[in-house]
C-alpha cells in the first residue's frame, strides 16, 4: 500500500513538473523568444503594469485583454514605444493556456519577490 502511495506521489509530481515545463516551454516559444529577438524590455513592461494595476489579478486581466486584441489603445506602453517596437499579432493560444502563460510571465518578472529588509 505504502509503495503504491509513493509511486502515485512520484507520478503526480512528475505530471506537475511536466505541465510546468510545458507552460515554461509555451511562454518561451510563443512569447519570450520574440521578445528576446526584438530586444523588448520585459522587466520594464512588467513594472509598467505593476505601477498601473498593483495586483497580479488585475495585471493578468489587462495583459490578457491586450493579447486578445493588441493595439496601441489596449496597450499600457506609451505611443513612442511602438515607434521602435511594432504591434504584435494576436496570439492563437487557447484562453486557459494564455492565462497560465501570463501568470508564469508575471511570476518570472515579479520584482516584489526580490524585496528584503536591510540590516
Amino acid at each position: 500500500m505504502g509503495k503504491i502511495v509513493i509511486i502515485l506521489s512520484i507520478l503526480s509530481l512528475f505530471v506537475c513538473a511536466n505541465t510546468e515545463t510545458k507552460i515554461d516551454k509555451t511562454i518561451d516559444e510563443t512569447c519570450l523568444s520574440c521578445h528576446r529577438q526584438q530586444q523588448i524590455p520585459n522587466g520594464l513592461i512588467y513594472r509598467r503594469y505593476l505601477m498601473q494595476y498593483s495586483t497580479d489579478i488585475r495585471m493578468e486581466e489587462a495583459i490578457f485583454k491586450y493579447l486578445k486584441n493588441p493595439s496601441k489603445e489596449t496597450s499600457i506602453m506609451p505611443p513612442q514605444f511602438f515607434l521602435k517596437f511594432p504591434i504584435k499579432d494576436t496570439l492563437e493560444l487557447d484562453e486557459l493556456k494564455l492565462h497560465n502563460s501570463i501568470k508564469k510571465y508575471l511570476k518570472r518578472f515579479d520584482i516584489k519577490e526580490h524585496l528584503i529588509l536591510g540590516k
Partner: protein
Amino acid sequence: MLSSEKRSLVRFLVIYLASTLLLFSLASWIFYSSAKHHLLDQQRETIKYEAELIKSKLRVLHQSNSFPLIYPHHSMIDSAIYDLDKKYIFGTYRSELLFNDFSDKAHLYHLTKVEPYYLGAVYLVTSRTINFEPITKLQKNILIFMLAAGIIFLLLGYFLGRLFVAPMRDSITRMNHFIQDTTHELNTPISTILTNIEMIETFGKHEENKAELKRIEIASKTLSRIYDDLTYLNLNHQYHRQIVTLNISELVEERMVYFTGMIEAKKLNIIVEVEENIMLDMDKNDAIRLIDNLLSNAIKYNKHQGTIEVMLSKTYFSVKDTGMGIESKDLDSILHRFKRANKSEGGFGIGLDIVNQVIQSYDYRLKIMSKVNEGTEVRILWEK
C-alpha cells in the same frame, strides 16, 4: 475664634476652594488635552515624514535593476505596503493583518496612498510606539501646578475669609460685651429687689399692697431668669458643670412653685403628671435652666386662661401649652439664638437656644411638636 465665625469661614473656604478647584481642573484639563494633542502631533509628524521618505525610496526601488531590493526601514518606525486589494506586500510588521487594526492605544498610525503604485503598493502604513515620557512629564507638571495653586488659593481664601467675617466678628464681640456689661449691671439691683420682697413677705408688712407686691415679685423673677440665661450664654465656654444625681421630679415641682405667681397672673390651668423619684445625673443649674426655660415659654406664649401640661416620666419630660403655636417653616430655625417665632411677647429669643445647648451637652434628644393656634409641645427624651 467664635464658633459662628469659624463656621462661616469654613463654609466660605469650602465654597471658594471647591469653585476654584473646579475652575482650575477644567482649565487644566483643557490645557492638558491641548498639550497632549500637540505632543502626539509632534510624534505623528515623524511617521508622516518617514512615510514620505519611504514613498520616494519605493520609486527608486521600482526602477532599480540591482537585486535584491532593500526595503527602507527606520529603527523606531514600522511600515508596510499593501496592494489595491489591501493585501500585504512587504514591510517591517510581523503581522500582516495590521492594516485593519489601528485600535492599539500604545501606537500611532499613519495611512497614506502611494501614487503611482510603485512596487504595486497602493497603501503605505507607518507606525511608531507612542513615547509617553513627555506626556507623563506634562501630567506631573500640571499636578504640581494644581497643588501649588491649591495652597496659594487656600491661604488667599483664608485671609479673604477672615477679612469678610471681620464685621460679623466685631458685631458679635460688641454684642457679647454689651450682654456682659448689662448682666453685670443688672445683678445688684435684681438681687436687692428680690431680697427686699422676701423681707417684706417674711415680716408680713404687705397686706394692703399684696397684689402690687406680687407683680413686683413676678417681674423681678423674670428679670432674674433673664440675667441667669444671659450669664449662662456669656460664660458658656468656661462653664464648669458639677454632675450629681438629681431628683428631677422634686426639682420640677419646686420650679412649678417658683412660677406660681406668673401662672396665677395669667390664670392658667395646670395639669401636672410627674412620676415620683425620676433620677438623672446632671448639673443642678443645667436642670433648672432646662425646666425654667420650657415653663417660662409655655407661660409667656400661652393664651389667657389657657392650659399647661407638665409631664415627667422615666423616658421624657414634656411641657405643652395652648398658645399660638409655631409655623412649620419656623420649626427648624426656632432653636437658633435670637430667633423668636412670635414677636408679640418680650424676650431675646435665647430660651430654646439654651435648652438646645444643655440637651446637646447631655446627649438628650429634643422634639418640638406644634400646631398654629392650637399650641406647642416641647419634649425632652432622656434616652441617648
